[in-house]
């Protein structure tokens, strides 16, 4: 029962891709010879070559900056490939992929949402952890309340905003506060990191707990403060090529780029840790 709609979608997608290929092929043949012509989605990838066409990358919203950079590099290296990036919450992306959205690569902000995709066997091989992220205390510029440690956030006077336990950053927040042995009297438990950050940027909140990379992105509007217990909740980012990828070679190459030296460097620039 659970497979029927998915297979159905896959068939449709294949049919559509074939049609596209035929149209593209016709158009290209009329002008110049092209390596893509005649190579349907069912065709076995020739080793060492990267096929052309589109590459759909579904990635966690927090990867926006770094993957946009890396995608540009990728397109420079593979002029025939157009990378389409779809950024959203990891759980939304997992839901979309399970519903048959045409994704070639999935980069999740946590293993749990990757598991949703690997469980029914939709990921090709074992997902690879390519980045890590840890929490940081975020405060308005100038740190008006002089916050230096996580324990400072236990103060009722300090309006702290955190993520709700239901979302990944909230789960991480729970872990670090347990580690520190404190209870944070949060004035709001937001459903996304963006909302936490927004409350601190606007000055409504005195402090918040978000990822290092988020603070880095909002550099100038806020300040980040490292704290000792952050290591208790290291967030792993797994990436995987999807089985039903229409462009497996390109997908493989993209994963290789992200997990390789160039990817590591870019991730580090954006504040991510690398395994």
């Amino acid at each position, binding site marked *: 029962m659970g497979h029927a709609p998915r297979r159905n979608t896959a068939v449709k997608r294949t049919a559509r891709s074939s049609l596209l290929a035929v149209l593209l092929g016709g158009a290209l043949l009329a002008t110049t010879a092209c390596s893509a012509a005649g190579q349907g989605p069912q065709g076995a990838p020739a080793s060492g070559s990267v096929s052309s066409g589109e590459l759909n990358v579904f990635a966690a919203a927090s990867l926006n900056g770094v993957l946009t950079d890396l995608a540009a590099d990728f397109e420079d290296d593979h002029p025939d490939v157009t990378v389409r990036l779809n950024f959203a919450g990891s*759980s939304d992306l997992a839901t979309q992929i399970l519903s048959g959205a045409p994704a070639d690569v999935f980069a999740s902000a946590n293993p749990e949402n990757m598991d949703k995709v690997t469980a029914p066997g939709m990921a090709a091989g074992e997902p690879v952890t390519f980045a890590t992220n840890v929490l940081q205390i975020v405060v308005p510029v100038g740190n008006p309340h002089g916050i230096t440690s996580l324990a400072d956030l236990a103060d009722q006077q300090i309006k702290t905003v955190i993520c*709700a336990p*239901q979302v990944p950053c909230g789960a991480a927040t729970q872990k670090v506060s347990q580690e520190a042995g404190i209870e944070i009297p949060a*004035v*709001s438990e*937001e459903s996304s990191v963006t909302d936490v950050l927004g409350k601190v940027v606007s*000055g*409504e909140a005195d402090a918040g707990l978000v990822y290092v990379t988020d603070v880095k992105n909002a550099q100038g509007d806020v300040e980040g403060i490292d704290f000792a217990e952050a290591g208790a909740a290291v967030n792993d980012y797994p990436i995987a090529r999807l089985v039903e990828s229409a462009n497996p070679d390109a997908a493989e190459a993209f994963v290789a780029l992200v997990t390789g030296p160039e990817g590591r460097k870019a991730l580090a620039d954006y504040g991510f840790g690398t395994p």
Partner: protein
Amino acid sequence: MATTTAVPDRVNTVPDTATAVRAPVPYWVYPLAAAGAIFVLLPLAGMAARVNWQEFPQLVTSEASLAALGLSLRTATASTALCIVLGIPMALVLARSSFPGQQVLRSLVLLPLVLPPVVGGLALLYTFGRRGLLGSTFEAFGLQIAFSTTAVVLAQTFVALPFLVLSLEGALRTAGTRYEAAAATLGARPSRVLRTVTLPLVLPGLLSGAVLSFARCLGEFGATLTFAGSLQGVTRTLPLEIYLQRETDADAAVALSLVLVVVAVVVVTLVHSRAGWAPALGVR
């Protein structure tokens, strides 16, 4: 005392006999109308089909769900009351007086109808927030609006007020001023005219406006999320709870959505059966 029969709820009703022949509707309208109805109803059916009925009672009676539902009902009631208190004078000014810039004022007042609620939330933030236009003044008086239930009420009132103003202004214009003039020539002061003539005459319009406002308050999400925050029992209303539950527990989210839909259907049915009229307004 045979006074309970045939109380007209509207003024100037045209007698409508059962044998009246209506102008025919073109035949092709029906399939399109059916398609429109299906378009609206099918997603609701789709959602209903997705409900986990076995666990439905536990899902909607969990502590978090009940807290969210209770908060939603309380804040929507308070916001509707605020809408009535502020909306009646606004509608009166718009319908009963004329001054330069009135048209512009009307458009501005109705702005929340067309603004994305997130924008409304931001606007409220920069007004009532700690660093907002008025926020620092409030803070000086020890009033803290951010992250409080008051913020939720403000956000809901902001988005729902135009519904009341629009409904009531329409009702006031339809009712006209002849009864008010009659009351004045009988010696009634303006306040008495308002209380004893104007408001009773536009009561159906006021009720439908209030019910629409209430419904809009219940559904408020964007402005609340942006402006008020999200904390169980304080600022996390039903839509915010649904949004959060969706992250981990799709069953709970769907169950709560159904509760919201049922409340909305009850409210909309109420307003239609009472006034037989509701303005077609875009919402979210």
